[in-house]
């Protein structure tokens, strides 16, 4: 097989693999952040209700 084609495949394969990983990381982190925000908001709401 032509070495040029191998390098071409590595370059584009690497690009799409890293892009997929980057997007996966963003989506996962977004889910974690949202869950933490929801939990904290619920906690604040509950403590506000107890105080009132």
């Amino acid at each position, binding site marked *: 097989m032509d070495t040029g084609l191998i*390098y*071409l495949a590595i*370059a*584009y394969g690497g*690009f799409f693999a890293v892009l997929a990983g980057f997007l996966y990381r963003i*989506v996962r982190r977004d889910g974690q952040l949202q869950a933490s*925000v929801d939990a904290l908001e619920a906690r604040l709401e509950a403590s506000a209700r107890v105080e009132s």
Partner: protein
Amino acid sequence: MISLPMSRILSIVVTLAMLVAVCAVFLYAPTERQMGDVQRIFYFHVSAALSAATAYFLVFLGSVQYLRTRADRWDRFAKVSAELGIAFSAFVLFSGPLWARPIWGVFWRWEPRLTTMLITFTIYVAYLMVRSYGEPGERTQRFAAVVGIVAFVNVPLVHYSINMWAADQQLHPPKVELDPAMLYTKLICYFTFACLFTLLMRLRLQQERQAARLEALSRRTQQ
């Protein structure tokens, strides 16, 4: 949040544009006579380099605006831009040697463009390190903004390195004449990378805003 309609629309546009770009690169663009198929790396390589330069300009812009206004949103903007600039530069530094090996016979040579690109990449990595290792707060943000402004000096150097150093030290050609089909493919890739860049920027900025909100909420619960 990622479910915002604009980000969804952009995701669809990026997916479609990426499909068109890949088809253009592999099916529409003709094979270069001297270099062969490996020249097809050019389309994503140059588009990524342009995206990285744009990102570094946005770091500069965000840093100037932060020093002017001291608003956290500009600091976040600069930070996210630097991350994307590093990601796109990393691809440039990864794909360049793969293209160079069959053409120049070496993966790397310390010629002006490659060297200035590597220096720029390293400086922006240092910029993110300054942010990570510094104490969270205004002082680190101010220091990072100064680094973000000074680092931008390197970006025009990368572009003009071809004219600034002697021709016998260069491996990159000063000007490239492209076949119309190659030119259209390059423009499609520019558009695709611009959309991808905007999408990633939006997603990361939304995430940073969410992280800031979380920090504010944790402070409130601790009180």
